[in-house]
């Protein structure tokens, strides 16, 4: 019998921080994760974590930069709370044991990042995510809670109008299990693998977002997908914004520093959506290199600076692109990087389903609005992971412990039994590749109405084919073929929501750039998209943006 007060799904920074908060509130906590906690994708974050702790900087400036960066779609009350928590959060992580880079006087070192008025990004070389993940994991201590490691979330159980637990597939044991819980926190990360060209890990398949959606949760602003300007050409491996923060510059095939034309004031350190559009425009207008890419140059920074502050980047370039950034330019192109949207929550991580909470990239509070600033996502995982953990613990304290019902597990066994018993059917990997090709080509940096409509039709056709998906592998233990099938199903649901949300949004805001509507339209579209699951696809509704002090202005960098 598996029953806990609080079940946290996902063991990255948001999940671990939620678990820690619930443990501190004296709850019996379980973490469910498809990976060992230290292998979570939080560890791949490179650049840093924002906190306005510098003497010249202020929390208000951080708030304003984030509001402006969000293209006025971020909820200003949430952003104010978020930025105020930044300093204490970073200090707490330092006290937990995180090894940050330091300034000569022994204080936390800071670097400039895109869209920020001051150097406010605290870092650990170019592996800040790894440093935080290690620090938090070591503080959490594995003995303090139950960890269901290498378990795939397959559904969120909602009965009597509230969340009562989850069903997950235990990879090693090869079977579905229900874990009953008084409250559940989903911290399962993004669905970046909806795209083929993505900086995300193979495991970022939106399992939690999709399970919440199927259970009746409203997804918010899913059409806002961030494309990181600088991903390595073939592998789409991330080259941190810190590379430009340290002084790296972008050049086109004519050797021109083209960002001067797009963002005259801050040039290469403009907001990510701005830089990504600039790169794609350069390539489309024939100023890219043959093979469609631009150069990121670091050579002028000198060997010592590159190798000390951008050590991982050096390794990545040398290993994965055969390029030495000390002596050669790095070939880069934008790639999917971050989902501003996710499971809609309030500041405390609560969703529209009682007992179900969400945090981190799987959630949408929203603080990033239409475009996230670099250095704000690591901060988000910790600030809102903690809030969700506290809120889930409070909810658990006033709720009875639910029963484990065999029916939920049986439903999953039946669903998967059909996949395994087919003698002919669709290979999940092939459906995944076709979906990724559609999303790459038609739902990218610039969006055209005809291509969006085609994309929706293509994703729906793939969903129809998914009804005949076949799992070839007949072993139960570590059946990755089954994991492929489950993940592909999750991603198809989310791809449909992304495209369905992008079609009616007839404006350009942040990362959503419509070529037929190049301007932001505050009169009609300064509102959040909400998507709930209907019989024939997502049902869209809209909610107002909370704003406190900052009236929308045109965004100029």
């Amino acid at each position, binding site marked *: 019998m598996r029953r806990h007060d609080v079940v946290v799904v996902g063991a990255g920074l948001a999940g671990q921080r939620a678990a820690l908060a619930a443990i501190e509130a004296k709850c019996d906590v379980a973490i469910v994760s498809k990976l060992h906690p230290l292998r979570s994708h939080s560890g791949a974050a490179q650049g840093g974590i924002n906190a306005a702790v510098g003497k010249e900087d202020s929390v208000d400036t951080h708030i304003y930069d984030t509001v402006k960066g969000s293209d006025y779609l971020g909820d200003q009350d949430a952003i104010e709370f978020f930025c105020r928590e930044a300093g*204490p959060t970073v200090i707490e992580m330092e006290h937990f044991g995180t090894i940050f880079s330091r300034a000569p006087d*022994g204080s936390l070192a800071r670097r400039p990042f895109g869209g920020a008025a001051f150097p406010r990004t605290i870092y650990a070389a170019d592996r800040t995510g*790894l440093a935080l993940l290690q620090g938090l994991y070591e503080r959490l201590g594995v003995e303090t809670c139950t960890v269901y490691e290498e378990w795939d979330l397959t559904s969120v159980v909602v009965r009597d109008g509230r969340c009562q637990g989850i069903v997950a597939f235990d990879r090693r044991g090869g079977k579905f299990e229900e874990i009953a819980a008084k409250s559940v926190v989903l911290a399962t990360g993004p669905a970046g693998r909806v795209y083929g060209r993505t900086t995300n*890990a193979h495991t970022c398949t939106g399992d939690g977002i999709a399970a919440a959606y199927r259970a009746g949760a409203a997804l918010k602003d899913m059409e806002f997908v961030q494309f990181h300007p600088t991903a390595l050409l073939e592998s789409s491996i991330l080259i941190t914004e810190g590379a430009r923060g340290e002084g790296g510059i972008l050049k086109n095939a004519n050797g021109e520093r083209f960002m001067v034309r797009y963002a005259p004031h801050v040039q290469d350190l403009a907001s990510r959506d701005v830089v990504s559009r600039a790169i794609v425009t350069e390539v489309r207008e024939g100023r890219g290199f043959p093979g469609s890419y631009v150069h990121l140059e670091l050579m002028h920074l000198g060997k010592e600076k590159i190798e000390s502050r951008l050590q991982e980047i050096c390794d990545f370039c040398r290993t994965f692109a055969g390029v030495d950034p000390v002596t050669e330019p790095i070939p880069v192109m934008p790639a999917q990087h971050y989902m501003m949207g996710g499971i809609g929550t309030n500041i405390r991580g609560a969703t529209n389903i009682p007992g179900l909470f969400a945090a981190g990239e799987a959630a949408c509070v929203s603080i990033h609005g239409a475009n996230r600033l670099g250095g704000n996502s690591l901060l988000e995982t910790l600030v809102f992971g903690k809030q969700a953990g506290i809120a889930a613990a409070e909810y658990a304290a006033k709720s009875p412990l639910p029963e484990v019902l065999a029916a939920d597990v049986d439903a999953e066994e039946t669903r998967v039994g059909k996949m395994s018993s087919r003698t002919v059917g669709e290979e999940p990997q092939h459906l995944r590749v076709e979906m990724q090709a559609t999303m790459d080509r038609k739902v990218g940096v610039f969006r055209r109405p005809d291509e969006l409509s085609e994309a929706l039709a293509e994703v729906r056709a793939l969903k129809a084919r998914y009804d005949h998906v076949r799992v070839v592998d007949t072993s139960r233990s570590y059946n990755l073929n089954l994991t492929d099938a489950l993940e592909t199903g999750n991603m198809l649901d989310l791809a449909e929501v992304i495209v369905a949300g992008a079609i009616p949004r007839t404006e350009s805001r942040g990362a959503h750039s419509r070529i037929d509507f190049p301007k932001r339209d505050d009169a009609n579209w300064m509102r959040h998209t909400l998507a709930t699951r209907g019989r024939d696809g997502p049902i869209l509704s809209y909610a107002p943006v909370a704003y406190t002090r900052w009236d929308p202005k045109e965004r100029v960098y």
Partner: protein
Amino acid sequence: MAATTVPTPFEVYRFDPSKDKAPRYDRFTLDLAPHTPVLTALLKIRSDSDPSLTLRYSCRSAICGSCAMVINSKSRLACQTQVGAELAKHGKIVIEPMRSQAVVRDLVVDQKPFWNRYRQIEPHLKTDPNDPMPVGKENPMTPEQVERFKETPRCIACAACYSACPAVEADPEFPGPMALAKLYRFVVDPRDKDTKNRLVRIQPEGLWLCLRCHLCTEACPKDVRPSERIRDLKELAIAAAGTSENGSRHAVGFKDNIAGAGVLNEFKLVRQTYGAMDLLRQVPQGVKIARKKPELLKKPHPIEGIEEVEAIYRALDPEGDR
């Protein structure tokens, strides 16, 4: 940027305990550009030929530590190893699961023992209530203090070092390179208040079982250099706890022997290592040696050129007493 592809033969270890009596190697030949990572090739096998091939993987950029395996006899990350160099050197690419960890299925191994070793060194900051952290601000740490961590913060716990280590394979008491590199990270952390205890405790818990073969350092995909950190730990342990262990006494005795004569006095070294009481237990071995190679038990004469040895010692440790 399309590079020409080359037919690349793979031999991949397969074992599904629920079906197979014994492991086998499946052969696949893929047309691949030389810079293709091995992980990409394995995923291609999964999507095009055999979806039942089982392995761990996630980030594909050498930061999550999931895809360590044995590739042409070396423990390393599949995402970080390119097929071209392997093909040039070995003519094929043989893929096997990591060593010293039981196979669960195909390339997936049971990592419990590895993680238990990591837990054993108590990988968390230990604070002292009498010396609390500053309220509302960070602990100051100079860039020089950060330097002392060396490359240990880069560790991604992939276990390639654990798989490559012969001491792990031979001796269940040995914590392994990763756990010891992690211990070093806490020992040099100015925020940790348990430094001395950590150093005292690790001596009987396997610090001296390292064979100094440096295979861990060779295997490490992140240049953490565990064997060098183990060496540092030994120095710090002797400084903090003295020569309380056979291992540390052996090390100090060795140094002392060479300093004196430029060559080992085996009899003296055994006595220095085990101490007078435990020496009795070595008597049977001593009798055997006395019969076969009596010269080993004699006090050696200082070697020719001992002054040069002395000069080296002086250069390394000007204040050392000799």
